[in-house]
């Protein structure tokens, strides 16, 4: 199925969902003439029109047997599962951070990403992960004074 066609359908779906959500925005006595729903409604209509245009263009160009995927990257398409796997490492980091804290979490993230990206399984990965985590902890926590999560497992140790 044509990518532009799918994109157009997705835009229509986003537009419809956004419109439905915007209709649930509460009224306010302080509201002006346009109101809190004014812009959202206009934006959802514009997006719907653009979605329809994209679908129409995709169908017309398909009929004309013209290349329609200008600017798209098939290589990116093929590697989508791997890219999502990379992102999931970040999601796991966000999930475990409150429990194991910044230093351990960051060390795990650096190590996991390095291994996922093909680093050989040896002591260098461990050293880089621990060294990197301590380095970032020194910059963000000690130098910049940012309160990164200590971790419920290590509460009271720092």
């Amino acid at each position, binding site marked *: 199925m044509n990518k532009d066609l799918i994109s157009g359908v997705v835009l229509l779906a986003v537009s419809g969902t956004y419109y439905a959500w915007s209709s649930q925005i509460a009224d306010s006595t302080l509201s*002006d003439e346009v109101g809190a729903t004014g812009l959202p409604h206009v*934006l959802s209509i514009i997006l719907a029109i653009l979605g329809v245009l994209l679908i129409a263009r995709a169908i017309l160009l398909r009929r004309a047997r013209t290349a329609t995927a200008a*600017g798209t990257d098939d290589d990116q*398409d093929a590697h989508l599962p791997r890219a999502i796997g990379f992102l999931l490492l970040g*999601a796991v980091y966000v999930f475990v*951070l409150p429990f194991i804290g910044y230093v351990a979490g960051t060390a795990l993230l650096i190590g996991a990403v*390095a291994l996922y990206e093909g680093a050989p399984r040896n002591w260098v990965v461990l050293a880089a992960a621990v060294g990197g985590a301590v380095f970032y902890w020194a910059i*963000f926590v000690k130098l910049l004074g940012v309160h990164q999560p200590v971790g419920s497992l290590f509460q009271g140790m720092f």
Partner: protein
Amino acid sequence: MTTFWDIIHLLTETPLFFVAIGGLTWGILGGALPGISASITMALVLPFTYTMDPAQAIALLACVYIGAEYGGSIPAILIRTPGTNSSAATVIDGYEMNRQGRAGEALGISLMSGVVGSLFGLAMLILLTEPLSWLALAFTPPSYFGLGILGLSVIASMSGGSLIKGLAAATVGLMIATVGTDPISGVTRFTFDIPDLLGGIEPVLVMVGLFALTELMSQSGSSTVLQLNETIRIKLPSWSMMNKLKRSQTIGCILGLFEGLTPGGGGSIAAFMSYNEAKRWSKTPQLFGKGSEEGVAAPEAANNTVASTALIPLLSFGIPSSNSTAVLLGGLLMHGLIPGPRLFEQSAQVIDSIYVGSFIAIIAQIGVGMIILPACIWLVNRPRAYRAGFIFALILSGIFTLNNSLFDLGIALALGLVGYLMRIAGFPVLPMILGVVLGHMVESSYRRSLVLSGGDHMIFLQDPIAVCLLSIALIFVVFSLSREFRDARKTKIEEAHS
């Protein structure tokens, strides 16, 4: 009236030199860290200025601002991550030059264009602060609306060959900007009872998600491995190159001056507009987006100009034109300094320190920049597997710094996925970012205008500044559309011939 001897006194009797260098270095480091904006870099140093001499404290903050604006271009070029909002436009050609093995050249052009822009901005700051102060006062809600529309008008030429997709991306960006508390009535929109969404989605999250995370995912999924030449070193542009960049730097300086003077303008709009105009006036517009030196020089000259010229409305009337100048205003107030004409009379030393400190920082930028840049290149040249891990950890750490919120991390990761899917489908991300950055200003100023006029849209045609800005926006759009149709027609004819 400040005399030459006052300047000499400032340089010899106070440690202003060290304050300027320290502020610059801190600014470059902070700006180079993805997720840490110029304003955050300044805010982090603000508590340390509490016990300082007011003149030195304000000079320090001004120098941090200068450093951060330059520092933001370093990750923009090396890892496709704008360190600050205003360096987002530098990503386009800066990173492309990096991919072509010309990272050192791009960094050198960025550095020198930044110096040119900063010097021009400082000169304008000294010359125009008092005479042009009336302009900032003249801005009304319709003027702000005109400014926002002017910023959005560049989308037409940044759609990457598909205007529909560019407009759709911008619309989604505007939708993201509507999340949070309504600017007029105060009701919540699209927050789903999540407290973290009450303040809206920070533009920096969108930028980091769409630029940095998408790129990391892309490099992970791609079989093409980015390997920089280990011999890459900073290559300052030659005289002939500087001569070639003259036009784009001039465009950047002029638009940087314009946007710096404009409350709410900021470096982001100036950078994108100057990129757009540099492309329009270039002899080789076809190279833009493919590693054009002018595409790096114009936005860098612009955002560095803004770092100085944004101080004009701030010092004259206390109107902060950006987050960074808002922090600087906080510094002034913390030391009991009230911006305005009396500041020039009663605290002339503070003004002089800003001027002299900024000058020192700008000149020192070449040396300090060259010392720090090799370290950045070294970092990029580490094995990709480790580099990806370190960059990913740095980005997530930086995002957490914004609000100490894990929710922000989730938003950024989600936007990373959105950016990747947009890349697959051929949607440009820049219009979406512009939509997010300008959405709040456009909506709030539009509605405030209508409140003032009782719903009469003629208010936008009665305000001379708004009319001027909207006219320029219209001209931009018409030019961009005509060029797109011309290019499309040309391509069609070429295809027919072949």
